[in-house]
């Protein structure tokens, strides 16, 4: 808890405190060259922020309580928080909540209107729920207020469009993307090259590639998808296959339909291929499990978040560094590729008083700004690369490129193409009932994977349950 022992109130850093913080940040901040010019002042360079034409100190004295998850990209932000505090005179307290519990904790706070959590690392799929309950602020009020936002400086439109759109409900923005990812095909380039295989362009090629490599006796499984039940686990994969088969979540009349022929075909593909080529354990695997297995050199190809590079391209964890290739999702029968859309979206809690909401907005603006994105990624000297900064221009910049580009062949291009061309903002049903729908579908998908029930029957059952959920039962 690096924020725990800071004395409250005092925005300007004493020498001792700066040293202490420096230690927390791995002494990185002090070593950076841009610090040297301002070392005589406060030991930190706030010029890049002060060039924004807003009064950063307009909510001085406020406290922002941010609930985040334990992850390196938030650890880096926590390490930089003293800069924000010095810039604005606003105190930030971070609560690191385990990813499995953050939704429940936030929902408890929002629904009881206690305002304990000013902003948090939010799931975009929960934003419709927030909007329906008026728990979170429509952020246009803040983005378009010249007192609060310098549009030319913040350049909100530079943030990936897919992520911005994923955070909109009925045309209004409810969360600002801080970090994100997309699902990509990840394969063993060395093995593919040896057999003359190319990364799959279609779902059928995934199967033929898998067949060519599959040899469980030699601890090589051809293809793998995660099966663990959960709205953010197997329901992060199935919707892409559904999209590739041309399936939709709603019928022409706007009624939810989860058992269309396309859905049955998609689930059938998921079940068939996972049973044919994945380790049996994958039925219960989440993404870290697949990444671990791939890092041990046992998986020929899998489709999951590009940010798994944290594990598979890390020489301390992985035996396949330098042997990895990346590609976009293959096309399905519909000719579409559908990647996932994920970002950690930061909303503003509506239960806060106005001043506190403004302070929260300043914090969000600071965290999502290009400068902070840079300082938490390639300018950050400590450990923990960020694979998901929120702006295209940064991805293309040489400096960022250098820190993450070596994850594997075609890493940057595959990731950017997926995000730019393969996303569909409605790849999952964005309704307030999503949490229940996601859980219900997740159970059904896993039950099919383990063979408890056939895909058609499973989805018919899901249809009944989902209809009940939409009625509020």
């Amino acid at each position, binding site marked *: 808890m690096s924020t725990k022992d800071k004395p409250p109130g005092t925005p300007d850093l004493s020498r001792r405190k700066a040293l202490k913080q420096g230690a927390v940040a791995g002494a990185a901040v002090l070593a950076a060259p841009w610090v040297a010019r301002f070392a005589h002042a406060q030991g930190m360079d706030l010029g890049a922020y002060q060039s924004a034409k807003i009064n950063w100190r307009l909510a001085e004295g406020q406290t922002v309580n941010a609930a985040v998850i334990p992850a390196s990209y938030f650890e880096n932000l926590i390490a930089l928080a003293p800069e924000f505090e010095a810039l604005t005179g606003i105190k930030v307290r971070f609560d690191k909540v385990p990813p499995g519990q953050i939704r429940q904790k936030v929902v408890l706070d929002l629904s009881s209107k206690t305002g304990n959590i000013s902003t948090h690392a939010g799931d975009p799929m929960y934003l419709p*729920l927030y909007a329906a309950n008026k728990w979170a602020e429509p952020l246009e009020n803040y983005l378009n207020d010249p007192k609060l936002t310098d549009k030319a400086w913040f350049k909100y439109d530079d943030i990936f469009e897919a992520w911005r759109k994923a955070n909109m409900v009925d045309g209004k923005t409810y969360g600002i993307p801080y970090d994100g990812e997309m699902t990509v095909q990840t394969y063993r380039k060395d093995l593919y090259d040896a057999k003359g295989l190319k990364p799959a362009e279609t779902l059928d090629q995934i199967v033929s590639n898998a067949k060519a490599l599959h040899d469980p006796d030699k601890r090589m499984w051809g293809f793998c998808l995660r099966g663990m039940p959960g709205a953010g686990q197997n329901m992060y994969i199935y919707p892409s296959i559904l999209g590739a088969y041309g399936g939709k979540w709603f019928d022409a009349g706007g009624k939810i339909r989860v058992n269309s022929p396309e859905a049955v075909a998609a689930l059938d593909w998921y079940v068939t291929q996972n049973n044919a080529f994945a380790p*049996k*354990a994958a039925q219960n695997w989440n993404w870290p499990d697949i990444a671990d297995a791939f890092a041990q050199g046992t998986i020929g190809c899998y489709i999951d978040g590009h940010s798994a590079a944290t594990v598979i391209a890390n020489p301390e964890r992985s035996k396949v560094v330098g042997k990895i290739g990346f590609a976009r999702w293959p096309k399905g029968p519909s000719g579409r590729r559908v990647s996932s859309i994920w970002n950690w979206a930061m909303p503003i809690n509506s239960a806060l008083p106005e001043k506190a909401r403004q302070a929260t907005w300043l914090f969000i603006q600071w965290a999502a700004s290009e400068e902070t994105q840079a300082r938490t990624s390639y300018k950050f000297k400590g450990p923990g690369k960020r694979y998901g900064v929120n702006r295209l221009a940064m991805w293309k910049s040489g400096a960022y490129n250098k820190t993450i580009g070596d994850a594997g062949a075609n890493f940057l291009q595959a990731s950017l193409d997926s995000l730019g061309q393969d996303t569909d903002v409605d790849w999952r049903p964005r309704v307030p009932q999503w949490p229940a729908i996601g859980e219900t579908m997740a159970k*059904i998908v896993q039950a099919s994977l383990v063979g408890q029930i056939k895909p058609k029957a499973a989805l018919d059952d899901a249809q009944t349950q989902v209809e009940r959920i939409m009625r509020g039962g």
Partner: protein
Amino acid sequence: MLAPGLLVLVATTTFPLLYLFWQSTQNINLAMPGMGGYIGAENYVRMWEDRRFWAALSFTSVYTVVTVALQLVFGMAMAMLILRIPRAQWAFRVAAILPIVLAPVVVGLFWRTLMLTPDFGIVDYASRSLGLGSHNWLGDPDLARFSVIAIHTWQWTPFVFLYLLAALAALPEDLYEAAKIDRANAWRRFVHITLPLLRPAIVVVVILRMTVALSAFAAIYAATGGGPGTSTEIINLYAYRVSFAELSLGYGAAAAVVLLVITMVVAGLLFRLRRAA
């Protein structure tokens, strides 16, 4: 002398219980704002018709009965065994504390990934090396039920062992001497002397283990999340999921109330048994 204790208990449990009960009569579905309000017993009616609730209830019963029985049998056997090797007892007493002390979420994760994963875990490796083949311990519905029961039994048998070891050690030695002279064999001595003497201790340990088994949560949550499908979903997990993943707080409260009533009925019966003993 009783007053402060009782007061604290009333303050900290009674009010929340009343609240829970009130909640179970409301339609609180966070995904459907504006639909809330008093709905009487509707949540309970819905539960009656809910297949998943009944599945969870039936697995909860199996889980509780089987884990408690296994703990009792293994714990007793171990205690009888270790009683005969007094010099090594300390090692077992210390070892017995270890599984109990390990944080449940770590227990679940360790068993799930490092031990039981087919093709990757060490249990699987051992089973292959012994020629027993590879099994999908947590992926196959029946095996998964077996596995979560095994994990709970592994973690808590030491407790029963510790408890019964001490109870056995306290039994009067002269009874055994007399029986030995009578040339009663070991099994008969166990059935006719040890068991009757241990009855109060056994009843107590069964009550204790039962309440803990009924409220098990973290280890299953970490190991299978209630899966595959809903195979290992106990009521606690079901109530949790309904409340916090599906945001149906009224219905979730009703599930919690039902679990409470069932637990109390079972405990009440055992409580009587204890007094009779």
